[in-house]
């Protein structure tokens, strides 16, 4: 008898947001599509719903209902990464896992093949409990229902009382059918307009929905609702379509001695690299990246990642990158007891030469040089500027690591204060006002032949910006010699233009009010300064050069 389990991680984007901000526990939390008053609420937790905050509302409107509301943006990419991570985790319990998304189930729903597991576990309930405990142990809220059909298990997993119990194993198909009929329609993936129309007709449960004629449903509510009806009644039986999980190619070696010499370590890496390359060659794949894992005797594990400019099977090229990365370390901080190499393989795509040579320079050589710089100084050392919508100067751009031509982004992307991009603007989109990507466009891979604007304002002065504005000394009440902004050397300020006020963040805890000025000193320096009213202090943002 076919057995299928449905794992539901309710409101996955909300769970991702609360994992990112554990300090928000106990407060109403919503996910918005962008961090602005006009942002639309896409997910709301129970506490927010109890205050009347519902998906579809504007953030400003939601704030008026719940003044202690917390909101954040969760990008599709973050959700996709979480789904991939959870799929790999669930694959530890069964070899066939299908992530949701089909049939409008939304992120956070997974179907697992539960057939043939009874001999391996004491019971299906023990197996299901193991799955749930694994997820809860990793900090997720989840419910696991073992049923007989895709829709039946899914509907039961969405039932609030069953979900609270965490694990449900249905004994017979009849039990599954009877229980799923009692689930209300607002718990499953029915289009909101269809759900409202059905509610007006008194159809609020799955059972009442199933009793409706399928053809009439299609005519009145469209093909999606009809398809859901056919799925629910068992007329459309979709087999499980498990995700294809790729096991990375790994080579490892336990050292019989504690290695402290970098050169000898590189020789070990070379020995381990050859079989990795050979395996990739057999599969018709190339290496788009290489992780070098070092296990230190006392300090623990450490990983260095290198990426070539393009997927390659060239041992020398990969070794050169590893040498550049490890070669910067003149002395290892501790002895290495184990070395592991993990290869990131990609399918080898045949390269295509362009018919017309746009540049007399070899861009491929430039990409290799960029890969070397990345290997030498870190993945975040080679970046491109990307424009963003923002009010504050530092919010109007971000630095994106330049992906290799193979398309893989850096594995160990920095989230530090001086790192790549501000988390505040993740997922923001807007109109491009000048030459640079704005918002959520995908970064271009490798080196690109540039396309500068032919009608640009070449007469504009360019400013320098300090990533962290420098606090200036407080201005004394009495300035007999003028405002000595930079000290005696530069002389007093002779001219000030401004203020240009930037104010915002009133919808969250990050209230900002800055009054920007251009201050010209006696020796001609043109400084970009601002007065931060909340902090009542002058800051140096940059300089016009």
């Amino acid at each position, binding site marked *: 008898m076919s057995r299928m389990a449905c794992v539901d991680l309710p409101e996955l984007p909300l769970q991702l947001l609360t994992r990112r901000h554990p300090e928000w526990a106990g407060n109403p939390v919503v996910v918005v599509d962008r961090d602005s008053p006009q942002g639309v609420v896409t997910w709301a937790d129970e506490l927010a719903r109890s205050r009347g905050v519902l998906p579809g509302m504007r953030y400003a409107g939601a704030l008026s209902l719940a003044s202690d509301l917390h909101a954040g943006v969760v990008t599709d990419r973050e959700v996709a990464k979480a789904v991939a991570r959870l799929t790999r985790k669930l694959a530890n319990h069964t070899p066939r896992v299908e992530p949701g998304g089909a049939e409008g189930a939304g992120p956070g729903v997974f179907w697992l093949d539960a057939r043939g597991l009874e001999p391996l576990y004491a019971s299906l309930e023990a197996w299901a409990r193991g799955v749930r405990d694994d997820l809860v142990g990793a900090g997720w809220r989840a419910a696991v229902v073992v049923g007989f059909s895709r829709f039946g298990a899914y509907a039961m997993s969405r039932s609030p009382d069953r979900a609270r119990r965490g694990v449900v194993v249905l004994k017979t198909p009849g039990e599954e059918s009877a229980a799923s009929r009692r689930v209300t329609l607002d718990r499953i993936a029915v289009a909101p307009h269809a759900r409202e129309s059905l509610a007006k007709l008194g159809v609020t449960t799955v059972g009442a929905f199933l009793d409706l004629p399928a053809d009439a449903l299609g005519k009145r509510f469209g093909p999606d609702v009809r398809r859901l009806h056919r799925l629910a009644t068992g007329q459309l039986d979709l087999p499980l379509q498990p995700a294809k999980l790729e096991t990375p190619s790994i080579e490892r070696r336990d050292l019989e001695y504690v290695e402290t010499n970098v050169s000898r370590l590189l020789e070990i890496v070379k020995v381990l690299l050859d079989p990795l390359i050979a395996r990739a060659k057999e599969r018709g794949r190339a290496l788009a990246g290489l992780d070098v894992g070092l296990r230190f005797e006392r300090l623990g594990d450490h990983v260095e990642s290198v990426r070539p400019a393009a997927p390659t099977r060239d041992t020398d090229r990969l070794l050169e990158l590893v040498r550049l990365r490890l070669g910067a370390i003149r002395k290892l901080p501790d002895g290495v007891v184990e070395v592991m190499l993990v290869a990131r393989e990609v399918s080898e795509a045949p390269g295509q030469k362009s018919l017309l040579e746009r540049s007399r320079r070899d861009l491929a050589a430039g990409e290799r040089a960029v890969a070397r710089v990345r290997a030498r100084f870190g993945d975040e050392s080679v970046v491109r500027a*990307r424009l963003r919508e923002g009010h504050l100067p530092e919010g109007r751009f971000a630095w994106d690591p330049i992906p290799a031509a193979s398309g893989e982004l850096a594995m160990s992307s920095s989230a530090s204060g001086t790192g790549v991009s501000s988390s505040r603007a993740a997922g923001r989109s807007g109109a491009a006002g000048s030459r640079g990507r704005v918002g959520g466009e995908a970064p271009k891979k490798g080196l690109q032949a540039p396309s500068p604007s032919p009608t640009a304002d070449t007469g504009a002065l360019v400013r*320098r910006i300090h990533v962290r504005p420098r606090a200036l000394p407080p201005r004394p009440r009495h300035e007999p010699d003028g405002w000595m902004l930079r000290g005696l050397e*530069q002389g007093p300020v002779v001219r000030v233009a401004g203020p240009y006020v930037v104010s915002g963040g009133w919808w969250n805890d990050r209230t900002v009010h800055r009054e920007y000025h251009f201050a010209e000193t006696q020796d001609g320096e043109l400084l970009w300064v601002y007065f931060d009213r909340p902090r009542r202090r002058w800051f140096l943002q940059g300089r016009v050069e």
Partner: protein
Amino acid sequence: MEVGPVRSSAKPDPPSAALEVPDPSTPVEAGEPLWTEWTSEGLRRGATPVATPAAWSLEAFAGRFGEISGGAACATLTLVFRLVYEAQRRGEVAAWIGHRASTFYPPDVAATGVDLDGLVVVRIANAVEAATASDLLVRSGSFAIVVVDFVGFKEAARRGGTTSVLDASARRAIPLPSLPSFPSSSRSVARGRAPRTFRGGVDLPIHAQTRLAGLAKRHDTAFVCLTDKDADRPSIGSLVSLRAHAARTARSADRYRCEIRVLKDKRRGPGRVHVEECHVPDGLC
């Protein structure tokens, strides 16, 4: 006693027809030798100066080790991005090497027409790393211009910023599979001794300068360093082939007169001046 004629110790005047110093303001046809007669020292000179002063163009820097300096009223960033823009108009890629903490303001650069996607930016911690990164990029021959922003390093040093190569933020520790989990390393990987702190000036070793000058010439790449110094300060080194000083010299309403004065040019000699009018950014946006 007979006294001979008094002989003057001064050298006799050369024949006026043998040495004709041309008037610099007189245009000279390209290809026509300037001096065709012997000088008093007996050296034949066939210098042919260009017909008109060279404009501010990438061509002047191609294949050379250049330096653009600026003092307090400087216009270095503005004028170097003209060169970047020109390189991009030719369909070539440009690279920028600078400090993480102080850099050009991308919206202003985008407003000048530069394609930010075509500008590779290397963000590093100190001047020694800048030399290494420059070497790697110039050596490839793929870049029409590589700019090293030493002004940013000076600003970072002024703020007391770090110049260390340690950067733990890009590192992560993961437990190796099927082995007992180890606690994540809380210390970053030491990378040898930290470089000496950068305290103003440019700390570009002479061997690096030699190598970079040779690579720039071989690959016809413009290698340009931006420095923060007055015009009377010496260049980074003797290998600088072209040194220009960019300054804002006059102001009218919201416009500034920006001058580039060539202080050193091993090919054409110093003295050329290029002038542009530039306007201040519109408020902030």
